[in-house]
């Protein structure tokens, strides 16, 4: 058991010194420079993180990023829970797009169990993933718009997001943490009348995205703040190892749904959206185009879906999911999260609990690529760049 004395020492040490007084020799401040802590509680991202900016006047000379304010030790918790108990935990890893986290976890376990979900539940999973992508992009772009002072755009986007959350809620019953897929199938079927409701919500979102794109690209003051700022060229993006919209904004059309197609993505044709010079403007445009692309994917999926069973006939574990034994082995299946490629590497040793779970999240690279971009940038651009990367800090710290 953790003994009391070192707990006392640790709590006293925690309380006494302010968090992370940066070692002054790490930053040799000459007289014109100043240290600015954009602290753990900052209105830039939905999760807490700390940026130390060394600024002189209005330009940022150097920046240091402190993560870890959302570290819950999820991988350690997952090791002590059975496979089905671990599913709700993967929701809360990156809570902005919990369905793709579930998808990564479930497809890895399906590889271990060597089972294939039937046609209908694959289509339902594709629909749910695309819906989660739409609401995550809307929230990410909205958060970014507040950092430019565009509060009205944020409220419009969150209003659209409520409609999408309504659609998701009709099926899974939850708004943010769904815990929806199961090993080998899906928990619920599409309710009646959901198809028509989904089609006109998607039509509304499609035409709203047109207005956003037109508003974003035509507004003079907006272009002054975004074109050519926080650019990540092709070499930088490859060096940092980004995936997702931030990568595609630089012109590389790497999309996990095309490179490692799982589920029924090969039967659905969609175009991978790419920008050309990787600045803030392109990243946001790629995200809005992806929202429209996701609407198109869902319409195709809704046309191609046929009635059928949700689970395969013979399941290795039958109906006893809680005490399911998984054969020993390893699995690593990349899935397209709204922020990039997510994959959960599961090592199983034959018991009903995973031996080791490692989550490869996309936000890890997004946050790692932030400090190099903040050299010789104005203070006003720091929140804009950080929000345009749209990284989920809870996924970085796990």
């Amino acid at each position, binding site marked *: *058991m953790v003994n009391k004395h070192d707990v006392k020492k640790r*709590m006293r*040490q925690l309380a006494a010194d302010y968090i992370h007084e940066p070692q002054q020799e790490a930053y040799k401040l000459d007289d014109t420079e100043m240290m600015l802590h954009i602290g753990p509680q900052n209105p830039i991202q939905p999760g807490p993180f700390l940026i130390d900016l060394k600024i002189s006047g209005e330009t940022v000379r150097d920046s240091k990023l402190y993560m*870890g304010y959302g570290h819950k030790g999820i991988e350690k918790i997952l090791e002590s829970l059975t496979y089905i108990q671990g599913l709700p935990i993967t929701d809360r890893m990156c809570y902005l797009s919990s369905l793709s986290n579930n998808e990564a976890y479930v497809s890895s376990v399906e590889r271990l169990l060597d089972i294939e979900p039937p046609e209908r539940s694959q289509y339902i999973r594709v629909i749910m993933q695309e819906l989660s992508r739409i609401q995550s992009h809307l929230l990410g772009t909205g958060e970014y718009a507040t950092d430019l002072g565009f509060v009205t755009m944020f409220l419009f986007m969150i209003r659209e997001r409520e409609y999408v959350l309504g659609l998701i809620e009709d099926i899974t019953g939850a708004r943010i943490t769904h815990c929806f897929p199961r090993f080998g199938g899906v928990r619920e079927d599409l309710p009646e009348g959901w198809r028509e409701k989904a089609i006109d919500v998607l039509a509304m979102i499609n035409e709203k995205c047109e207005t956003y794109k037109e508003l974003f690209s035509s507004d003079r003051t907006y272009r002054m703040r975004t074109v050519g700022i926080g650019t990540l060229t092709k070499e930088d993006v490859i060096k*940092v190892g980004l995936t997702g919209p931030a990568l595609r904004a630089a012109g590389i059309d790497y999309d996990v749904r095309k490179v490692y197609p799982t589920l029924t993505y090969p039967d659905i044709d969609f175009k991978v959206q790419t920008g050309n010079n990787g600045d803030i403007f392109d990243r946001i445009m790629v995200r809005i185009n992806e929202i429209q692309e996701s609407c198109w994917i869902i319409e195709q999926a809704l046309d191609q879906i046929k009635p059928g069973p949700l689970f395969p006939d013979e399941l290795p574990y039958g109906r006893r999911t809680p005490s399911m034994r998984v054969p020993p082995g390893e699995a690593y299946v990349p899935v397209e999260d709204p922020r990039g490629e997510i994959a959960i590497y599961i090592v199983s040793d034959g018991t009903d609990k995973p031996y080791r779970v490692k989550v490869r999240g996309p936000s890890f690279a997004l946050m790692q690529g932030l400090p190099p971009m903040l050299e010789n940038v104005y203070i006003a651009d720091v929140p804009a760049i950080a929000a345009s990367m749209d990284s989920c800090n809870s996924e970085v710290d796990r």
Partner: protein
Amino acid sequence: MDGETVLDSLKSQFQDAVMDAMVDSQPPHIVCANVDKEKIVDVCAYLKDNLQFNRLSGITSVDFLDKNKFEVVYMIASYDHSVIVKLKADVVRDENPSIDTVIPVWWNANWYEREVYELMGIYFNGHPEMTVLVLTDDMMGEWPFRKDYPGFPQTAAKYPYSDDQESVVESEYPLKWKSWPSERHYLE
């Protein structure tokens, strides 16, 4: 450029270093290989220069308590083709397990290696800033992800003390919310 060609070129290049390499049957068709601890940087450099593996997807480590070894797993992928390579390097579970860093090959290995160090305790020789990334400063020496970490199932439902111990928080961390919290400036 698919799994077999990568496998053959790897085997031909490093006969002794690469042991029991094979291609996974499941769809992403990952090329798995166990690599000797000393040769890991050369294999990675070879993969990056000759076989266009320009994306390090992740570094993780698995702790085999019974086999008394760590397994450092490198997931390497590429933007140009769809082959994933999984390299595993075994590190003996002794006093300070260490392996060479791959930062010269991939710049973004920096954070992955820092995370593996602070959570599992495997030191990466030659790493520029091996400091805390995710944990608090004082938890640096506890390697929480090891299998024999005592503090994990937080049995004390109310951290940091259980019911029998007296309240550590109140005495050590006095919050005077019972009296007016910010009266200090009045009394000066």
